[in-house]
Protein backbone atom coordinates (compact mmCIF):
# COMPACT_ATOMS: atom_id res chain seq x y z
CA UNK A 1 0.00 0.00 0.00
CA UNK A 2 1.31 3.40 -0.91
CA UNK A 3 0.72 5.51 2.19
CA UNK A 4 -0.67 8.86 1.15
CA UNK A 5 0.21 10.79 4.32
CA UNK A 6 3.56 9.25 5.28
CA UNK A 7 5.49 11.41 7.71
CA UNK A 8 2.71 13.96 8.21
CA UNK A 9 1.70 15.24 11.64
CA UNK A 10 -2.07 15.56 11.83
CA UNK A 11 -4.43 17.05 14.41
CA UNK A 12 -8.08 16.01 14.41
CA UNK A 13 -10.44 17.77 16.80
CA UNK A 14 -13.50 15.97 18.15
CA UNK A 15 -11.72 12.74 17.33
CA UNK A 16 -13.05 10.43 20.04
CA UNK A 17 -15.98 9.31 17.94
CA UNK A 18 -17.88 9.61 14.67
CA UNK A 19 -16.33 11.36 11.68
CA UNK A 20 -13.34 12.60 13.68
CA UNK A 21 -12.45 9.08 14.76
CA UNK A 22 -12.84 7.78 11.20
CA UNK A 23 -10.53 10.51 9.89
CA UNK A 24 -7.92 9.83 12.57
CA UNK A 25 -8.06 6.09 11.91
CA UNK A 26 -7.67 6.55 8.16
CA UNK A 27 -4.87 9.11 8.48
CA UNK A 28 -2.95 6.74 10.75
CA UNK A 29 -3.44 3.94 8.21
CA UNK A 30 -2.00 6.29 5.57
CA UNK A 31 1.18 6.77 7.57
CA UNK A 32 0.40 9.99 9.46
CA UNK A 33 1.20 10.60 13.10
CA UNK A 34 -2.22 11.50 14.46
CA UNK A 35 -3.14 13.54 17.51
CA UNK A 36 -6.73 13.01 18.63
CA UNK A 37 -8.13 15.98 20.52
CA UNK A 38 -11.44 15.77 22.29
CA UNK A 39 -13.21 17.30 25.25
CA UNK A 40 -13.72 13.70 26.42
CA UNK A 41 -10.07 12.94 27.10
CA UNK A 42 -10.65 9.36 28.29
CA UNK A 43 -12.52 8.47 25.10
CA UNK A 44 -9.83 10.12 22.97
CA UNK A 45 -7.15 8.22 24.87
CA UNK A 46 -8.96 4.93 24.35
CA UNK A 47 -9.39 5.71 20.65
CA UNK A 48 -5.70 6.57 20.26
CA UNK A 49 -4.69 3.33 21.98
CA UNK A 50 -7.02 1.45 19.70
CA UNK A 51 -5.43 3.05 16.63
CA UNK A 52 -2.02 2.23 18.08
CA UNK A 53 1.34 3.11 16.58
CA UNK A 54 2.27 6.74 17.06
CA UNK A 55 -1.31 7.92 17.71
CA UNK A 56 -1.80 10.03 20.81
CA UNK A 57 -4.60 11.89 22.56
CA UNK A 58 -4.94 15.30 24.18
CA UNK A 59 -7.88 16.59 26.18
CA UNK A 60 -9.05 19.93 24.84
CA UNK A 61 -12.26 21.90 24.56
CA UNK A 62 -12.45 23.11 20.95
CA UNK A 63 -14.35 26.20 22.05
CA UNK A 64 -11.63 27.34 24.47
CA UNK A 65 -8.88 29.51 23.06
CA UNK A 66 -6.32 28.79 25.77
CA UNK A 67 -6.78 25.04 25.46
CA UNK A 68 -6.66 25.14 21.66
CA UNK A 69 -3.50 27.27 21.63
CA UNK A 70 -1.88 24.97 24.18
CA UNK A 71 -2.92 21.89 22.20
CA UNK A 72 -1.25 23.14 19.05
CA UNK A 73 1.84 24.36 20.89
CA UNK A 74 2.18 20.93 22.47
CA UNK A 75 1.94 19.17 19.09
CA UNK A 76 4.60 21.43 17.61
CA UNK A 77 6.76 20.89 20.68
CA UNK A 78 6.39 17.10 20.64
CA UNK A 79 6.46 16.43 16.90
CA UNK A 80 8.40 19.36 15.51
CA UNK A 81 5.53 20.81 13.51
CA UNK A 82 1.98 20.44 12.26
CA UNK A 83 1.13 19.47 8.67
CA UNK A 84 -2.61 18.77 8.76
CA UNK A 85 -5.37 20.09 10.99
CA UNK A 86 -8.94 18.85 10.73
CA UNK A 87 -11.47 21.11 12.45
CA UNK A 88 -14.12 18.52 13.12
CA UNK A 89 -15.36 19.08 16.66
CA UNK A 90 -19.01 20.00 16.65
CA UNK A 91 -22.27 19.76 18.52
CA UNK A 92 -25.89 19.78 17.41
CA UNK A 93 -29.08 21.09 18.85
CA UNK A 94 -32.39 20.20 17.24
CA UNK A 95 -34.87 23.00 17.80
CA UNK A 96 -36.59 25.72 15.76
CA UNK A 97 -34.57 28.92 15.41
CA UNK A 98 -37.54 31.02 16.39
CA UNK A 99 -37.83 30.92 20.13
CA UNK A 100 -34.31 29.58 20.67
CA UNK A 101 -32.51 31.19 23.59
CA UNK A 102 -29.28 33.04 22.95
CA UNK A 103 -27.66 30.68 25.41
CA UNK A 104 -28.65 27.63 23.34
CA UNK A 105 -27.59 29.38 20.12
CA UNK A 106 -24.17 30.03 21.60
CA UNK A 107 -23.81 26.45 22.86
CA UNK A 108 -23.71 25.44 19.20
CA UNK A 109 -21.95 28.38 17.59
CA UNK A 110 -19.24 28.55 20.26
CA UNK A 111 -18.00 25.13 19.11
CA UNK A 112 -19.11 24.88 15.49
CA UNK A 113 -18.01 28.35 14.45
CA UNK A 114 -15.83 29.86 17.20
CA UNK A 115 -14.14 26.48 17.68
CA UNK A 116 -13.39 26.16 13.97
CA UNK A 117 -11.97 29.68 14.03
CA UNK A 118 -9.71 28.81 16.96
CA UNK A 119 -8.44 25.56 15.44
CA UNK A 120 -7.84 27.06 11.99
CA UNK A 121 -6.22 30.27 13.13
CA UNK A 122 -3.87 28.63 15.65
CA UNK A 123 -3.04 25.74 13.32
CA UNK A 124 -2.38 28.13 10.43
CA UNK A 125 -0.02 30.10 12.63
CA UNK A 126 1.97 26.96 13.42
CA UNK A 127 1.96 25.84 9.78
CA UNK A 128 3.09 29.22 8.48
CA UNK A 129 6.12 28.96 10.74
CA UNK A 130 7.13 25.65 9.14
CA UNK A 131 6.45 26.22 5.46
CA UNK A 132 2.80 25.28 5.04
CA UNK A 133 0.18 22.64 5.55
CA UNK A 134 -3.39 21.59 4.95
CA UNK A 135 -6.46 22.74 6.88
CA UNK A 136 -9.70 20.85 6.55
CA UNK A 137 -13.03 21.92 7.98
CA UNK A 138 -15.73 19.33 8.42
CA UNK A 139 -18.68 21.53 7.52
CA UNK A 140 -22.02 20.30 6.23
CA UNK A 141 -24.38 20.74 3.28
CA UNK A 142 -26.68 22.32 5.87
CA UNK A 143 -24.33 25.30 5.65
CA UNK A 144 -25.50 25.87 2.08
CA UNK A 145 -29.27 26.12 2.49
CA UNK A 146 -31.99 26.79 5.01
CA UNK A 147 -32.11 23.85 7.38
CA UNK A 148 -35.19 23.67 9.61
CA UNK A 149 -34.60 22.60 13.22
CA UNK A 150 -30.83 22.96 12.95
CA UNK A 151 -30.60 26.70 12.41
CA UNK A 152 -27.75 27.28 14.83
CA UNK A 153 -25.82 24.29 13.51
CA UNK A 154 -26.37 25.22 9.86
CA UNK A 155 -25.58 28.91 10.40
CA UNK A 156 -22.35 27.99 12.14
CA UNK A 157 -21.47 25.62 9.28
CA UNK A 158 -22.14 28.39 6.74
CA UNK A 159 -19.81 30.62 8.72
CA UNK A 160 -17.22 27.87 8.95
CA UNK A 161 -17.29 27.38 5.16
CA UNK A 162 -16.72 31.08 4.56
CA UNK A 163 -14.00 31.28 7.19
CA UNK A 164 -12.22 28.32 5.61
CA UNK A 165 -12.27 30.04 2.22
CA UNK A 166 -11.10 33.32 3.69
CA UNK A 167 -8.18 31.70 5.48
CA UNK A 168 -7.32 29.81 2.29
CA UNK A 169 -7.05 33.05 0.35
CA UNK A 170 -5.20 34.86 3.12
CA UNK A 171 -2.67 32.09 3.61
CA UNK A 172 -2.09 30.93 0.03
CA UNK A 173 1.32 32.58 -0.14
CA UNK A 174 2.32 30.76 3.04
CA UNK A 175 1.82 27.37 1.44
CA UNK A 176 -1.31 26.67 3.43
CA UNK A 177 -4.32 25.13 1.76
CA UNK A 178 -7.75 25.19 3.41
CA UNK A 179 -10.81 23.29 2.21
CA UNK A 180 -14.27 22.52 3.52
CA UNK A 181 -15.96 19.14 3.31
CA UNK A 182 -19.74 19.21 3.28
CA UNK A 183 -21.29 15.85 4.01
CA UNK A 184 -24.97 15.17 3.71
CA UNK A 185 -26.68 13.08 6.39
CA UNK A 186 -24.47 10.46 8.00
CA UNK A 187 -26.16 8.02 10.36
CA UNK A 188 -24.29 9.35 13.38
CA UNK A 189 -25.43 9.73 16.96
CA UNK A 190 -26.14 13.38 16.11
CA UNK A 191 -28.89 12.31 13.70
CA UNK A 192 -30.29 9.07 15.14
CA UNK A 193 -32.36 10.42 18.05
CA UNK A 194 -34.06 13.11 15.97
CA UNK A 195 -35.44 11.29 12.94
CA UNK A 196 -39.10 11.56 13.95
CA UNK A 197 -38.70 15.26 14.79
CA UNK A 198 -37.28 15.90 11.32
CA UNK A 199 -40.01 13.80 9.69
CA UNK A 200 -42.68 15.87 11.40
CA UNK A 201 -41.06 19.21 10.62
CA UNK A 202 -40.56 18.31 6.95
CA UNK A 203 -44.16 17.19 6.51
CA UNK A 204 -43.13 13.78 5.24
CA UNK A 205 -46.46 12.18 6.06
CA UNK A 206 -48.29 14.73 3.91
CA UNK A 207 -46.00 13.79 1.00
CA UNK A 208 -46.69 10.10 1.53
CA UNK A 209 -43.17 9.35 2.71
CA UNK A 210 -43.25 6.84 5.58
CA UNK A 211 -40.30 8.04 7.64
CA UNK A 212 -37.05 10.01 7.67
CA UNK A 213 -34.96 7.03 6.56
CA UNK A 214 -37.13 6.64 3.47
CA UNK A 215 -36.76 10.37 2.78
CA UNK A 216 -32.99 10.06 3.05
CA UNK A 217 -33.13 7.19 0.59
CA UNK A 218 -34.94 9.39 -1.91
CA UNK A 219 -32.73 12.44 -1.44
CA UNK A 220 -29.27 10.99 -1.05
CA UNK A 221 -29.59 7.30 -1.89
CA UNK A 222 -28.57 6.19 1.58
CA UNK A 223 -26.86 7.53 4.65
CA UNK A 224 -23.20 8.30 4.12
CA UNK A 225 -20.49 6.61 6.11
CA UNK A 226 -17.88 8.24 8.32
CA UNK A 227 -15.22 6.34 6.36
CA UNK A 228 -16.36 8.05 3.16
CA UNK A 229 -15.80 11.45 4.73
CA UNK A 230 -12.39 10.19 5.84
CA UNK A 231 -11.53 9.17 2.27
CA UNK A 232 -12.23 12.67 0.97
CA UNK A 233 -10.36 14.18 3.91
CA UNK A 234 -7.41 11.99 2.98
CA UNK A 235 -7.47 13.15 -0.63
CA UNK A 236 -7.65 16.82 0.37
CA UNK A 237 -4.89 16.50 2.99
CA UNK A 238 -2.44 14.91 0.60
CA UNK A 239 -0.10 16.27 -2.02
CA UNK A 240 -2.41 14.97 -4.76
CA UNK A 241 -4.70 17.91 -3.97
CA UNK A 242 -1.96 20.54 -4.18
CA UNK A 243 -4.06 22.88 -6.34
CA UNK A 244 -7.22 22.45 -4.25
CA UNK A 245 -7.72 25.32 -1.84
CA UNK A 246 -10.69 27.42 -0.72
CA UNK A 247 -12.79 24.61 -2.12
CA UNK A 248 -16.13 23.39 -0.82
CA UNK A 249 -16.46 19.70 -1.50
CA UNK A 250 -19.88 18.13 -1.19
CA UNK A 251 -20.28 14.46 -0.42
CA UNK A 252 -23.96 13.85 -0.11
CA UNK A 253 -25.25 11.16 -2.45
CA UNK A 254 -26.71 13.88 -4.67
CA UNK A 255 -28.72 15.71 -2.00
CA UNK A 256 -27.60 19.20 -3.09
CA UNK A 257 -27.79 18.41 -6.80
CA UNK A 258 -31.56 18.32 -6.82
CA UNK A 259 -34.13 21.04 -6.28
CA UNK A 260 -36.90 18.85 -4.98
Amino acid at each position, binding site marked *: MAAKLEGKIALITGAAQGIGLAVATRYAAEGATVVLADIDGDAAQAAAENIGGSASAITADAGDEGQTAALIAEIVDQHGGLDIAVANAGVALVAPAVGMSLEDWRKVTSINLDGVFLTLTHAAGAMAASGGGALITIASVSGQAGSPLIGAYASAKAGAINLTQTIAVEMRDHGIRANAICPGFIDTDMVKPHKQTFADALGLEAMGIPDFDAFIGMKQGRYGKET*EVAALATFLAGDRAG*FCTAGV*YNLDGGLRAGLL
Partner: protein
Amino acid sequence: MSDLELEGRLAHVTGAASGIGWAIAQRLAAAGARVAISDMDADGAVARAAELGDGHFGIGADVRNMEQVTAAIEASVEALGGLDLLVNNAGVEIGKPIVETGEEEFAWLMDINVNGVFRCTKAAVPALAASAAAGKDSAIVNIASLAGVGGVPLLGAYCASKAAVIRFTEVTAIELREAGVRANAVCPAFIDTPMVERLAPAVAAMTGMEFGDVVAVKQGRYGTLEEVAEIVAFLGSDEAAWTTGSHYVLDGGLSGGLL
Protein backbone atom coordinates in the same frame (compact mmCIF):
# COMPACT_ATOMS: atom_id res chain seq x y z
CA MET B 1 -6.64 -0.75 0.08
CA SER B 2 -4.47 -1.84 -2.78
CA ASP B 3 -1.55 0.10 -4.06
CA LEU B 4 -3.49 0.24 -7.30
CA GLU B 5 -6.64 2.09 -6.35
CA LEU B 6 -8.32 1.52 -9.71
CA GLU B 7 -7.37 -2.13 -10.16
CA GLY B 8 -9.91 -3.81 -12.40
CA ARG B 9 -11.61 -0.55 -13.33
CA LEU B 10 -12.75 -0.32 -16.97
CA ALA B 11 -12.61 3.28 -18.15
CA HIS B 12 -13.37 5.27 -21.27
CA VAL B 13 -11.90 8.77 -21.67
CA THR B 14 -13.05 10.98 -24.54
CA GLY B 15 -10.73 13.48 -26.22
CA ALA B 16 -7.82 11.63 -24.68
CA ALA B 17 -5.21 11.71 -27.42
CA SER B 18 -3.74 14.91 -25.92
CA GLY B 19 -3.90 17.44 -23.09
CA ILE B 20 -5.98 16.83 -19.98
CA GLY B 21 -7.62 13.73 -21.45
CA TRP B 22 -4.28 12.08 -22.09
CA ALA B 23 -3.09 12.96 -18.57
CA ILE B 24 -6.27 11.39 -17.18
CA ALA B 25 -5.82 8.25 -19.27
CA GLN B 26 -2.25 7.87 -18.05
CA ARG B 27 -3.24 8.39 -14.41
CA LEU B 28 -6.09 5.89 -14.58
CA ALA B 29 -3.86 3.32 -16.26
CA ALA B 30 -1.12 3.87 -13.68
CA ALA B 31 -3.68 3.18 -10.95
CA GLY B 32 -4.55 -0.16 -12.52
CA ALA B 33 -7.49 0.71 -14.77
CA ARG B 34 -7.86 -0.57 -18.28
CA VAL B 35 -8.49 2.46 -20.43
CA ALA B 36 -10.27 3.07 -23.71
CA ILE B 37 -9.15 6.27 -25.39
CA SER B 38 -11.39 7.92 -27.93
CA ASP B 39 -10.57 11.03 -29.89
CA MET B 40 -11.43 12.76 -33.15
CA ASP B 41 -7.82 12.00 -34.00
CA ALA B 42 -8.24 8.24 -34.52
CA ASP B 43 -4.55 7.62 -35.17
CA GLY B 44 -3.65 9.55 -32.04
CA ALA B 45 -6.15 7.56 -29.96
CA VAL B 46 -4.80 4.23 -31.19
CA ALA B 47 -1.18 5.35 -30.71
CA ARG B 48 -1.85 6.60 -27.17
CA ALA B 49 -3.57 3.33 -26.23
CA ALA B 50 -0.54 1.44 -27.55
CA GLU B 51 1.66 3.73 -25.49
CA LEU B 52 -0.26 2.70 -22.36
CA GLY B 53 0.48 -0.93 -23.23
CA ASP B 54 -1.43 -4.19 -23.40
CA GLY B 55 -5.06 -4.25 -22.32
CA HIS B 56 -5.85 -0.68 -23.35
CA PHE B 57 -7.84 0.37 -26.39
CA GLY B 58 -7.95 3.32 -28.77
CA ILE B 59 -10.59 4.37 -31.28
CA GLY B 60 -11.60 7.39 -33.35
CA ALA B 61 -14.86 9.15 -32.55
CA ASP B 62 -16.29 12.61 -33.12
CA VAL B 63 -18.57 13.49 -30.19
CA ARG B 64 -20.71 15.49 -32.64
CA ASN B 65 -21.85 12.26 -34.24
CA MET B 66 -24.16 9.93 -32.28
CA GLU B 67 -23.41 6.94 -34.50
CA GLN B 68 -19.68 7.32 -34.04
CA VAL B 69 -20.07 7.81 -30.31
CA THR B 70 -22.28 4.74 -29.96
CA ALA B 71 -19.90 2.66 -32.06
CA ALA B 72 -16.86 3.81 -30.08
CA ILE B 73 -18.46 3.09 -26.71
CA GLU B 74 -19.68 -0.31 -27.90
CA ALA B 75 -16.27 -1.20 -29.29
CA SER B 76 -14.55 -0.18 -26.07
CA VAL B 77 -17.04 -2.15 -23.95
CA GLU B 78 -16.30 -5.14 -26.12
CA ALA B 79 -12.52 -4.64 -26.02
CA LEU B 80 -12.31 -4.04 -22.25
CA GLY B 81 -15.11 -6.40 -21.26
CA GLY B 82 -17.34 -3.68 -19.81
CA LEU B 83 -17.41 -0.10 -18.64
CA ASP B 84 -17.53 1.33 -15.14
CA LEU B 85 -16.00 4.77 -15.55
CA LEU B 86 -16.77 7.28 -18.30
CA VAL B 87 -14.73 10.49 -18.38
CA ASN B 88 -16.33 13.09 -20.65
CA ASN B 89 -13.35 15.25 -21.47
CA ALA B 90 -13.62 16.17 -25.16
CA GLY B 91 -14.11 19.91 -25.51
CA VAL B 92 -13.20 23.05 -27.42
CA GLU B 93 -13.03 26.77 -26.70
CA ILE B 94 -13.66 30.06 -28.48
CA GLY B 95 -11.84 33.14 -27.20
CA LYS B 96 -13.94 36.09 -28.40
CA PRO B 97 -16.38 38.63 -27.05
CA ILE B 98 -19.96 37.36 -27.24
CA VAL B 99 -20.99 40.01 -29.75
CA GLU B 100 -18.20 38.99 -32.10
CA THR B 101 -18.98 35.30 -31.83
CA GLY B 102 -20.74 33.91 -34.88
CA GLU B 103 -23.95 31.95 -34.53
CA GLU B 104 -22.41 28.97 -36.26
CA GLU B 105 -19.29 28.83 -34.14
CA PHE B 106 -21.39 29.19 -30.98
CA ALA B 107 -23.46 26.22 -32.12
CA TRP B 108 -20.27 24.30 -33.03
CA LEU B 109 -18.92 24.75 -29.50
CA MET B 110 -22.20 23.77 -27.86
CA ASP B 111 -22.45 20.73 -30.10
CA ILE B 112 -19.12 19.47 -28.80
CA ASN B 113 -19.04 20.66 -25.18
CA VAL B 114 -22.66 20.08 -24.24
CA ASN B 115 -24.30 17.82 -26.80
CA GLY B 116 -21.14 15.70 -26.89
CA VAL B 117 -21.43 15.02 -23.15
CA PHE B 118 -25.10 14.17 -23.66
CA ARG B 119 -24.31 11.76 -26.52
CA CYS B 120 -21.50 9.97 -24.71
CA THR B 121 -23.52 9.69 -21.51
CA LYS B 122 -26.52 8.32 -23.36
CA ALA B 123 -24.40 5.78 -25.19
CA ALA B 124 -22.51 4.68 -22.07
CA VAL B 125 -25.30 4.39 -19.51
CA PRO B 126 -26.43 0.85 -20.42
CA ALA B 127 -22.91 -0.49 -19.89
CA LEU B 128 -22.37 1.64 -16.75
CA ALA B 129 -25.68 0.45 -15.28
CA ALA B 130 -24.81 -3.16 -16.09
CA SER B 131 -21.56 -2.71 -14.22
CA ALA B 132 -23.38 -1.26 -11.21
CA ALA B 133 -25.90 -4.10 -11.32
CA ALA B 134 -22.95 -6.50 -11.15
CA GLY B 135 -21.92 -4.84 -7.89
CA LYS B 136 -19.15 -2.54 -9.09
CA ASP B 137 -18.92 1.16 -8.31
CA SER B 138 -19.92 2.86 -11.55
CA ALA B 139 -19.26 6.49 -12.32
CA ILE B 140 -19.21 9.34 -14.80
CA VAL B 141 -16.78 12.23 -14.40
CA ASN B 142 -17.44 15.25 -16.59
CA ILE B 143 -14.63 17.69 -17.20
CA ALA B 144 -16.42 20.99 -16.79
CA SER B 145 -14.47 24.13 -15.86
CA LEU B 146 -14.38 26.92 -13.35
CA ALA B 147 -15.71 28.88 -16.33
CA GLY B 148 -18.97 27.06 -15.65
CA VAL B 149 -19.07 28.56 -12.15
CA GLY B 150 -18.37 32.21 -12.98
CA GLY B 151 -18.09 34.51 -15.96
CA VAL B 152 -14.79 34.99 -17.79
CA PRO B 153 -14.53 37.67 -20.49
CA LEU B 154 -13.95 36.28 -23.99
CA LEU B 155 -15.20 32.88 -22.91
CA GLY B 156 -18.94 33.46 -23.20
CA ALA B 157 -19.76 30.39 -25.24
CA TYR B 158 -17.33 28.25 -23.27
CA CYS B 159 -18.69 29.47 -19.91
CA ALA B 160 -22.27 28.80 -20.99
CA SER B 161 -21.35 25.31 -22.16
CA LYS B 162 -19.54 24.41 -18.95
CA ALA B 163 -22.37 25.75 -16.79
CA ALA B 164 -24.64 23.49 -18.81
CA VAL B 165 -22.34 20.54 -18.14
CA ILE B 166 -22.49 21.16 -14.38
CA ARG B 167 -26.29 21.24 -14.37
CA PHE B 168 -26.44 18.24 -16.72
CA THR B 169 -24.19 16.36 -14.29
CA GLU B 170 -26.59 17.07 -11.43
CA VAL B 171 -29.59 15.70 -13.29
CA THR B 172 -27.59 12.71 -14.50
CA ALA B 173 -26.68 11.98 -10.89
CA ILE B 174 -30.26 12.19 -9.66
CA GLU B 175 -31.76 10.18 -12.50
CA LEU B 176 -29.15 7.43 -12.35
CA ARG B 177 -28.87 7.13 -8.57
CA GLU B 178 -31.27 4.19 -8.43
CA ALA B 179 -29.28 2.45 -11.17
CA GLY B 180 -26.12 2.83 -9.08
CA VAL B 181 -24.31 5.15 -11.48
CA ARG B 182 -22.64 8.21 -9.96
CA ALA B 183 -21.98 11.43 -11.89
CA ASN B 184 -19.74 14.30 -10.86
CA ALA B 185 -18.05 17.22 -12.55
CA VAL B 186 -14.56 18.62 -12.15
CA CYS B 187 -14.01 22.38 -12.50
CA PRO B 188 -10.39 23.31 -13.09
CA ALA B 189 -9.35 26.95 -13.26
CA PHE B 190 -6.42 27.97 -15.47
CA ILE B 191 -4.29 24.90 -16.13
CA ASP B 192 -1.03 24.95 -17.99
CA THR B 193 -2.47 23.92 -21.37
CA PRO B 194 -2.28 25.12 -24.98
CA MET B 195 -5.85 26.38 -24.61
CA VAL B 196 -4.84 28.79 -21.86
CA GLU B 197 -1.77 29.80 -23.84
CA ARG B 198 -4.01 30.68 -26.79
CA LEU B 199 -6.33 32.75 -24.61
CA ALA B 200 -3.75 34.64 -22.56
CA PRO B 201 -2.94 37.50 -24.97
CA ALA B 202 -6.59 38.34 -25.62
CA VAL B 203 -7.50 38.23 -21.93
CA ALA B 204 -4.48 40.38 -21.09
CA ALA B 205 -5.50 42.95 -23.71
CA MET B 206 -9.03 43.07 -22.35
CA THR B 207 -8.24 43.25 -18.64
CA GLY B 208 -5.12 45.41 -18.98
CA MET B 209 -3.19 43.03 -16.74
CA GLU B 210 -0.51 40.56 -17.69
CA PHE B 211 -2.17 37.15 -17.69
CA GLY B 212 0.59 35.45 -15.75
CA ASP B 213 0.33 38.11 -13.05
CA VAL B 214 -3.42 37.62 -12.74
CA VAL B 215 -2.92 33.88 -12.41
CA ALA B 216 -0.20 34.34 -9.78
CA VAL B 217 -2.39 36.63 -7.68
CA LYS B 218 -5.71 34.82 -8.08
CA GLN B 219 -4.74 31.16 -8.05
CA GLY B 220 -1.11 31.15 -6.90
CA ARG B 221 0.14 29.40 -10.01
CA TYR B 222 -1.12 27.44 -12.98
CA GLY B 223 -2.64 24.08 -12.16
CA THR B 224 -1.15 21.05 -13.82
CA LEU B 225 -2.65 18.37 -16.01
CA GLU B 226 -1.61 15.83 -13.40
CA GLU B 227 -3.60 17.63 -10.69
CA VAL B 228 -6.74 17.45 -12.80
CA ALA B 229 -6.03 13.76 -13.40
CA GLU B 230 -5.66 13.18 -9.63
CA ILE B 231 -9.09 14.53 -8.78
CA VAL B 232 -10.63 12.55 -11.64
CA ALA B 233 -8.93 9.41 -10.31
CA PHE B 234 -10.35 10.13 -6.86
CA LEU B 235 -13.91 10.78 -8.06
CA GLY B 236 -13.68 7.78 -10.36
CA SER B 237 -12.68 5.42 -7.58
CA ASP B 238 -14.87 3.66 -5.01
CA GLU B 239 -13.29 5.95 -2.41
CA ALA B 240 -15.90 8.45 -3.63
CA ALA B 241 -18.75 5.92 -3.63
CA TRP B 242 -21.20 8.34 -1.99
CA THR B 243 -20.19 11.39 -3.99
CA THR B 244 -22.61 12.12 -6.77
CA GLY B 245 -24.13 15.24 -8.30
CA SER B 246 -21.23 17.37 -7.10
CA HIS B 247 -18.84 19.60 -8.95
CA TYR B 248 -15.36 19.65 -7.47
CA VAL B 249 -13.47 22.87 -7.98
CA LEU B 250 -9.72 22.80 -8.45
CA ASP B 251 -8.56 26.36 -8.73
CA GLY B 252 -5.88 27.37 -6.25
CA GLY B 253 -8.51 29.43 -4.42
CA LEU B 254 -9.58 31.55 -7.42
CA SER B 255 -13.30 31.14 -6.85
CA GLY B 256 -13.06 30.98 -3.05
CA GLY B 257 -12.28 34.68 -2.76
CA LEU B 258 -14.64 37.56 -3.38
CA LEU B 259 -12.18 39.86 -5.14
